[in-house]
């Protein structure tokens, strides 16, 4: 590092630390974004300078759902083995959030002393991050439709990832979900050293045009590993409605699914071109899992495979898995008096289908289960709430019980639930509408029987509000 760089870096770090202290002292939030923003203005090349100092390497975690839980598990596995880990644990996953997380562990001299940096990265900014960073590992969990008013299509994102990843050196290991056809195809292309078509790509040419690009002569080939489930007993009875990628990413033919684990994740092959689920480097049947739900089985084996690749023993990983506690709002459990509360972030159709599946599994055979649903439509939630009609809420209403509904869009959710029933009155189902969240939480706690669990399904900003209400302090 040049002396001038060292001075500017020191200045940026010092400022960041002052800002963090100020924000926290004044109780303005957790300071997970602003310090990064300010210090990057003071030193535009800050991020690469920080990345280079990480002792063993940077691990980027991407995907629509499960980043926070997977990153947290991986962090615990590494910390349990004595490694020092930097992690953007607040879930702030845009550039400023990543910078802030790294700065927290940077000394005023500009020295970042950490063994691994685990960074959750928003799917849209991965290409931007890769301009500044040569990660040791990239872990890609899944690609679903998320916020329609903000983001592009699943195919376009995968293509941009491929373009950004393919120039990385061969030391980088890419770990992908084999059960997601889009990601399996990405891995397939990467391991052949292929780059996507340069202009416009599939969106304008039609998907048939993709499978025969000429490989670039000097393209490095990253190591590609796959994780996935091989547990047919977990197959869903039918493919849910909220799916994106049931068409072959290589030739466009309808994929043939032997079974679906969740959304479009499953065991599949293409009857037309022969494209099929990639061979996994892990046998999921041998692994315990964290928390509840099939989606957390994916998060577990994703972190597990990466940790094994780093060289950590299986029994040590499993020890951490068994002692794992949830990240905030992700199947997080709290106790208030004699009642348990489990918060399950439900921010998009696939995520909510899975939280409903997990909740109804637990509530099965309970006489009158209580669930609180909170739907907001602020920027972090997406302003378009039409996605709730892509959720199979019927699973929840058919089971019956008491459903309390709240949030900015209380009545939109209430309508969705009312229209989930083919009878005007289901005697086992009670919809309780309370626009005011504080009241809704009080009611929900009141009607939850002692020693039972209240399940809360909030969107992102609603989850923060719920926690603030329950814990009494701000997260962001």
């Amino acid at each position, binding site marked *: 590092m040049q002396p001038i760089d060292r001075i500017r870096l020191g200045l940026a770090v010092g400022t960041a630390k002052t800002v963090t202290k100020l924000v926290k002292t004044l109780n303005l939030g957790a300071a997970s974004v602003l310090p990064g923003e300010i210090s990057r203005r003071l030193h535009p090349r800050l991020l690469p300078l920080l990345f280079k100092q990480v002792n063993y390497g940077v691990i980027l975690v991407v995907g629509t759902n499960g980043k926070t839980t997977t990153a947290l598990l991986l962090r615990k596995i590494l910390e349990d083995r004595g490694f020092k880990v930097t992690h953007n644990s607040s879930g702030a996953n845009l550039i400023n959030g990543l910078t802030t997380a790294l700065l927290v562990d940077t000394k005023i001299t500009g020295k970042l002393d950490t063994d691994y940096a685990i960074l959750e990265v928003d799917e849209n900014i991965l290409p931007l991050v890769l301009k500044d960073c040569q990660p040791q590992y990239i872990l890609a969990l899944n690609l679903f439709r998320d916020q329609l008013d903000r983001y592009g*299509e699943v195919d376009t994102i995968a293509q941009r990832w491929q373009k950004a990843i393919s120039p990385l050196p061969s030391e980088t290991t890419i770990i992908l979900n084999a059960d997601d056809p889009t990601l399996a195809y990405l891995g397939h292309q990467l391991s052949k050293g292929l780059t996507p078509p340069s202009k416009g790509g599939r969106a304008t040419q039609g998907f048939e045009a993709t499978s025969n690009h000429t490989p670039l002569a000097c393209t490095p080939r990253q190591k590609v590993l796959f994780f996935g489930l091989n547990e047919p007993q977990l197959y869903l009875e039918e493919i849910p409605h909220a799916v994106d990628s049931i068409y072959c990413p290589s030739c466009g033919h309808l994929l043939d699914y032997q079974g679906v684990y969740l959304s479009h994740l499953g065991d599949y092959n293409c009857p037309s071109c022969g494209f099929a689920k990639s061979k996994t480097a892990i046998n999921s049947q041998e692994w315990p899992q964290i928390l509840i739900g099939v989606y957390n089985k994916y998060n577990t084996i994703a972190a597990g495979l990466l940790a094994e690749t780093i060289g950590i023993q299986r029994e040590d990983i499993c020890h951490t898995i068994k002692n794992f506690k949830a990240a905030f709002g992700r199947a997080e459990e709290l106790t208030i008096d004699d009642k348990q509360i489990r918060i399950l972030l439900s921010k998009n159709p696939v995520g909510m289908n899975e939280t409903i599946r997990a909740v109804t599994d637990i509530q099965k055979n309970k006489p009158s289960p209580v669930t609180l649903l909170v739907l907001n439509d602020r920027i972090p939630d997406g302003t378009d709430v039409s996605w709730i009609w892509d959720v199979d809420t019927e699973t929840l209403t058919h089971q019956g019980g008491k459903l309390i509904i709240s949030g900015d869009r209380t009545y939109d959710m209430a309508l969705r639930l009312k*229209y989930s029933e083919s009878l*005007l009155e289901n005697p086992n189902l009670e919809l309780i509408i309370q*626009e005011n969240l504080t009241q809704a939480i009080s009611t929900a706690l009141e009607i939850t029987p002692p020693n039972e669990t209240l399940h809360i399904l909030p969107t992102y900003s609603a989850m923060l509000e719920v926690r603030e209400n329950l814990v009494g302090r701000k997260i962001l």
Partner: protein
Amino acid sequence: MELSIGWLYPNLMSTYGDRGNVICLQRRCQWRDIQVTIVPLDRETPSETFQQVDIIVGGGAQDRQQEIVMRDLKGEKAFALQQTLNNDTPGVFTCGSPQLLGHYYEPALGQKIEGLGLLDMVSKHPGIDAPRCIGNVVFEITAKPLATELETIWGDRPIVIGFENHGGRTYLKTVQHLGKVITGYGNNGEDGMEGAFYHNAIATYSHGPLLAKNPFITDWLLKKALENKYQKEITLSKLDDSLAIAARKAMLQRLDLSKIIATN
């Protein structure tokens, strides 16, 4: 009584919760003891089926999916769909699907996509840098005789509350506008008009889904379909719409329109 609802390409054209429109139609039949079947109209469906359903529903698609649809919706299938709508079968086309019914859609990049040419209108994307039209939208239905028929069902001005999210802009020629924008962008953000109305087909950028908060449109579609099928005047039994009314009130209040529109 019984009805069949034809759902255009359910796997390909259902991006923005548009399945909700099918659910609304289905449930309001079930709640009234009307037998209802949902018939997917997709790539595997023979063209005759397009003419055998009582209501047609179409939703929005992502670009790649829309292309697959347009490749399939040609020849006999296109003709069958045209015949059905020309024979006054009620239809509701939301989000991207109205673009299919016009002459063409010109995307920001790539080639012009030909439509069915049934509605005399064209859609164009003003360029990749142009902002999308996103947000809550409120408009009053003015198309004739639809507006009067809806008012009879609802007992109030037919004001639609929805959500729009479109990159393309639509320009109508001779086809009738569906309504007049009160707040939001509408067809193109320029002329203050929204949607199109042709025979008994409603075309609008508004989703949300459209029918959930505007149950009078749902009931109008059902009434038209039953009248076509049974060739007699139908009066549907009233349903409890208090949740929809509360949802409407909440949105109008937020948009500061509750004083201007004293609606149901």
